[in-house]
């Protein structure tokens, strides 16, 4: 892989850390709701729903934490990719089964996001960010302005992520209105 400007891998790692830690936090706040969503995916026996919910939550939180220090970034990115692959597979299986009207359990706005291929695309892009966070850095001296680029760039990426989630959550409501 070609070397990237050093700000980009840091930016992607920081974005993923925010997304994963934020996701884990939201799931923890409504654990029952999340366990119910896991059950709705109909991939596991019902009694496994709560342990599986805890497992996903813990993996997300650990991946988010490991992504932050440089020393553990590889492990964090690998765990993030594994979580993304597992949940995206679950989404895709249910989409292919035609069960798109179930709650995705993403813990988004009011937990109202349904399954869609947009969600799959979103997770693929997050996976790409996980891969790019491990990219080699082109040698360049970092200056103070890079700090601004890093912070503002991460916030901007997260803003785009949040807006995209909201728009995906709105779609079924709009379709509902159209009848």
């Amino acid at each position, binding site marked *: 892989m070609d070397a990237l400007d050093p700000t980009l891998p840091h930016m992607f790692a920081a974005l993923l850390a925010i997304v994963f830690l934020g996701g884990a936090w939201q799931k923890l706040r409504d654990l029952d709701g999340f366990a119910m969503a896991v059950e709705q995916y109909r991939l596991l026996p019902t009694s496994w729903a709560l342990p599986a919910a805890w497992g996903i939550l813990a993996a997300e939180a650990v991946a988010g934490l490991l992504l932050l220090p440089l020393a553990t970034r590889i492990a964090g990115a690998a765990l993030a990719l594994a979580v993304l692959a597992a949940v995206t597979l679950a989404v895709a299986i249910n989409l292919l089964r035609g069960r798109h009207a179930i709650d995705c359990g993403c813990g988004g706005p009011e937990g109202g996001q349904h399954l869609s291929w947009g969600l799959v695309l979103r997770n693929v892009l997050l996976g790409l960010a996980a891969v790019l966070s491990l990219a080699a850095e082109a040698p360049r001296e970092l200056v103070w302005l890079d700090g601004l680029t890093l912070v503002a760039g991460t916030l901007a990426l997260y803003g785009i992520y949040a807006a995209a989630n909201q728009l995906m959550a709105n779609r079924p*409501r709009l379709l509902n209105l159209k009848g």
Partner: protein
Amino acid sequence: MIDALAVSNAILWVVVLALLVAVFALARQVGILYERIAPMGALMIDSGPAVGETAPRFDLPALGGGGVAVGAAAERSQLLFFLSPSCPVCKKLLPILKSIAAAESAWLRIVFASDGEAEEHAAFRRRAALTDFPYVLSAELGMAFRVGKLPYAVLLDEAGRVRAKGLVNSREQLESLFTAKEMNVVSVQEFVTGQAGAGQGTGMGT
């Protein structure tokens, strides 16, 4: 020159972030609007037995033994709640229904209705802790009330007449069924429209 670029860069970042906040806020407001535009009160789908008519009579076996008479004269009103184990909104309403059942037990009895495999429903009934409530499985019952979308609720009075019905997605919509019965109107939707149409907008939103 470099200073000028740094300043311009910083200003641009501020603008980009401000715009992103605005985009997110707008998307959120659009989402809230989509929900609010939806009819107030439980949406009535205009088919099946009309409000005021006597409901068709059913004698159904309940899960876990016993029987349930629907549409018969009884001591208490009946709230038929049509649900399915695969409907998240139904699950969201279950705790609300349980609290309503406890608070209104003097005049109201809640009956859960669905159709499908008895085994799946029996397991769902146990998990959702609905064993204290009558739970019936009958495709004919759903068809008689023309239940299209779930969760759907029908309120029958002591004489077995339909007093209110509709698609219910929230506590407010559930309560609108009781309000419709109390106020003796067909639906809160009609009441609100009637008020607005007659130019008597005062006192709305109560």
